[in-house]
């Protein structure tokens, strides 16, 4: 066995001038992927073609409008399109501007002081900018921490004697999404690393004589099946929104799911074309929501309502209120409203609060019911 297996090139040897080489393997349009293809890659199933699962789709769109919400956890039955939805989200996200050549995808409008590439650029001149797709980075099970956090680029160290940092998945996910399927099966030491970075927005690397910190702000998206095991409470708490998905129970939706799935299987490009218009509309909604977000007002009354609701449910800390209000604002922006109203609060309350309830040991399954009951108590039926 030698290293000549197709696609198995251990490290980036793009020969860039930059001291830091940004990996492209995780980028949706990365060159490495196309080189690595053995079986043909299929386009991701379109987001808009997912039948039902409105709460999940809404939560993902809210996270796309306002990344500060703090991530989405999708928990539920097998075969409900959890990972399909997340993977298809990538196609909906508008491109973002980055400083050309910056390995950490800094925003040209506000290059970070902590970025070694951008702080070395000549002052007073606007950095050259480039449009790239928003990254949706997969964190596969079995990942080792050198690839998550980044490590010394050993190829370059050996060949050129340069001490170059090879960024990991955390750097690749900066300003985008980091997706963990089967999040409840993730190794403990990776969870620890992830929690630390998610809390500070910064990845600190100390290895092989490299001492460096770089920004790593991303929307954490996790999915899993509760039957496979529970999530550590600390990690649970990192997710802004938590949605439960279940297989549709009514025949009509089930038939629709099967028919669309079949159409996609038989002719993926044709199916994509058929849904292109709908996808464009969804993308437009997200874009408009983003633009509108800063001008959506948040009346004091609504904040009070949110606080009352959280008190009624006895959620720990203030994170519940904060997420609830932010999610409601993002939803208002998506809906085209300029003011957050009770209806928005109600729509997102279950997603924002169900994982923050103090657990009654035998009551886990009915967290949603408790939120709904509190909603009725606070707002009336």
């Amino acid at each position, binding site marked *: 066995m030698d*290293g000549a297996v197709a696609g198995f090139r251990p490290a980036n040897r793009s020969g860039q001038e930059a001291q830091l080489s940004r990996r492209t*393997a995780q980028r949706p349009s*990365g060159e490495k992927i196309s080189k690595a293809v053995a079986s043909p890659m299929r386009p991701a199933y379109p987001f808009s073609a997912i039948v039902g699962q409105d709460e999940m789709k809404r939560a993902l769109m809210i996270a796309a409008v306002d990344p500060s919400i703090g991530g989405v956890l999708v928990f539920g*039955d097998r*075969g409900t399109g959890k990972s399909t939805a997340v993977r298809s989200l990538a196609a909906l996200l508008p491109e973002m501007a980055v400083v050309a050549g910056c390995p950490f995808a800094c925003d040209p409008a506000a290059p970070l002081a902590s970025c070694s590439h951008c702080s070395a650029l000549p002052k007073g001149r606007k950095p050259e900018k480039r449009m790239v797709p928003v990254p949706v980075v997969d964190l*596969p099970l079995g990942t080792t921490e050198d690839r998550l956090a980044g490590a010394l680029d050993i190829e370059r160290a050996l060949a050129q004697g340069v001490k170059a940092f090879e960024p990991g998945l955390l750097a690749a996910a900066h300003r985008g999404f980091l997706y963990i399927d089967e999040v409840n099966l993730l*190794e403990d030491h990776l969870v620890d690393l992830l929690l630390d970075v998610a809390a500070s927005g910064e990845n600190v690397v100390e290895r092989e004589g490299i001492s460096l910190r770089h920004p790593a702000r991303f929307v954490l998206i996790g999915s899993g099946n509760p039957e496979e095991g529970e999530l550590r409470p600390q990690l649970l708490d990192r997710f802004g929104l938590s949605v439960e998905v279940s297989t549709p129970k009514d025949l009509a939706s089930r038939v629709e799911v099967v028919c669309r799935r079949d159409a996609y299987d038989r002719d993926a490009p044709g199916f994509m074309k058929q849904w292109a218009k709908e996808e464009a509309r969804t993308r437009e909604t997200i874009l408009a929501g983003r633009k509108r977000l800063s001008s959506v007002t948040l009346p004091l009354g609504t904040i009070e309502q949110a606080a009352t609701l959280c008190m009624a449910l006895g959620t720990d800390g203030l994170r519940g209120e904060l997420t609830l209000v932010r999610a409601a604002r993002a939803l208002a922006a998506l809906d085209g409203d300029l003011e957050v109203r009770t209806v928005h609060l109600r729509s997102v309350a279950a997603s924002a609060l169900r994982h923050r309830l103090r657990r009654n040991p*035998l009551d886990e*399954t009915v967290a949603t019911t408790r939120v709904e009951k509190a909603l009725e108590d606070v707002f009336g039926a």
Partner: protein
Amino acid sequence: MSGLASRSVDAKRSEDARMESAASQVAALLAIDPVGLVGAVLRGPADPKRDEWLEALRKLLPAGVPWRRVPLGIADGRLLGGLDLAASLSAGRPIAQAGLLAEADGGMIILPMAERVESQLIARIAAVLDSGVLRIAREGISMARATRFGVIALDEGVGDDEQVTEALSDRLAFRIEFDPAALQRAAPVMPTRVEIEAARRRLMQVRIPADLPQAFCAAALALGIPSLRAPVFALRCARAAAALAGRMEVTHEDAALAAQLILAPRARQVPEAPAEEPEQPPEQQQESSNAETQQREEQPSLEDLVLAAAQASLPAGLLAGLGVAARQMARQAAASGRSGMMRRSAQRGRPIGARPAAWRAGLRLALVETLRVAAPWQEYRRREKPHHAALVHIRREDVRIRRYKQNSETTTIFLVDASGSAALHRLAEAKGAVELLLADCYVRRDRVAVIAFRGRGAEVLLEPTHSLVRAKRSLAALPGGGGTPLAAGIVAGYAMAEASRKRGQTPVIVALTDGRANVTRDGLGGRAVAESEALESARLFRASGIAALLIDTAPRPQPFSRDLASAMGARYVPLPFADAARMSATVRQAARAPASGP
């Protein structure tokens, strides 16, 4: 039901004949559409016949496609790919090595002893199956590579609680109960590879009747199959069957076959008989199975046909198996993912891989893993520190330690009904039995805890402890009297069991009650509400998969206590005339085999 049966007599007879060779059918269908149908679970003992089936499948697949066995305890490096240690050492730079999953691209992987495969391995395989992409980020290698393979899971489990987890079996189209005797009877007529190839070319052109998806979905609902993968697989199966028969359109025959092969083995309930069931003369049935598309409207609905076909081959003893399925789910929930039960340990037990950690005394160094991490850096480090004489440069961040899994300490939680009714009956004897058990626990170095429930709620008398003396004292002081808040007692027992599981212990609950629940969780009176709450709590408890034993202390065995025990998933032991010594013997037995049900 009778209408369905009489109507499909002819169809059924031919179906029976076909079921005889179901296994060879499956092999052919799988060979036609390995990507869409993914694979099969073969349940049955290791047997030459099974190997023959595998060989037959292999012969139907294109020559030279990868065919890889995945050993049970395969390491991530071998499964997903990683650093090639030997090559990296000799080259002085990291050399990557493809993993087994990448090697299997375009072919099949075989999972022997699939009923024992851990959820971590299943999840890695499932991720590739779901997305069609193998994603790796490990040991300096990052890549995403389109990868497709089929999976044959060899389920060698005996008994109903030893089965392939649903996380895997749900993703594979077929399940074959492998009965070597049945296979011997039927002379499998296998199509040739050429025929399969022709069918494969036809596959995507095969049209499906417009109402077929609806028929599969409705039948799946009626059979209580929650997963939507079932109707999707059924559709693909019907299409492959049509392609194999050389048809360009799925017929009723294909639909019926798909219902038998895909839906029936997944059924969780026997469908209710339809409300109105017009008798159909056999001629019409005959006609309809040969009918053309334009006549479809006048035919007996495809839905009924599909359902009848599935029903005709429902596994025997389906209803009896349902309880088992629920128990299995609970067991799986308990066995996987959560901490506890099986504990990760630093020193003892079965090795389960290595992880990075700062090395301190008491940890076991994983030497090979450590060397593997350090290997690619040797040249670089030598260059960095040329005067360092070390033969191998190992740094702190290279250190990997071994992790072990061990059976954990047991915590026996006594949940004692100290209500007035129980006190009347046999609280004293219960106390005596518990004391005997305490002695056993002491010998095994188990922890014990005592929770009593009486009056308005439950009270923890003793947190888990090794101290026999304290346990005795708390029991001796236990007063009797008041109502029976059974639901509150179960909740308190669960909370403690869950807490001890989080600490890595294995909890066993021993509940002693006469089952006369009459106090609700809110502390109010009312037998009906109290009983239904107790049952409700018991059902939720069962989902946790915690081993439990319910000892009925009433003078005569109570039906309600029995129901409660089965709702809890607990072993039920009525002890109307038993003495303390016999009680102790029973508990000991239960504690030794906590996972087995009643």
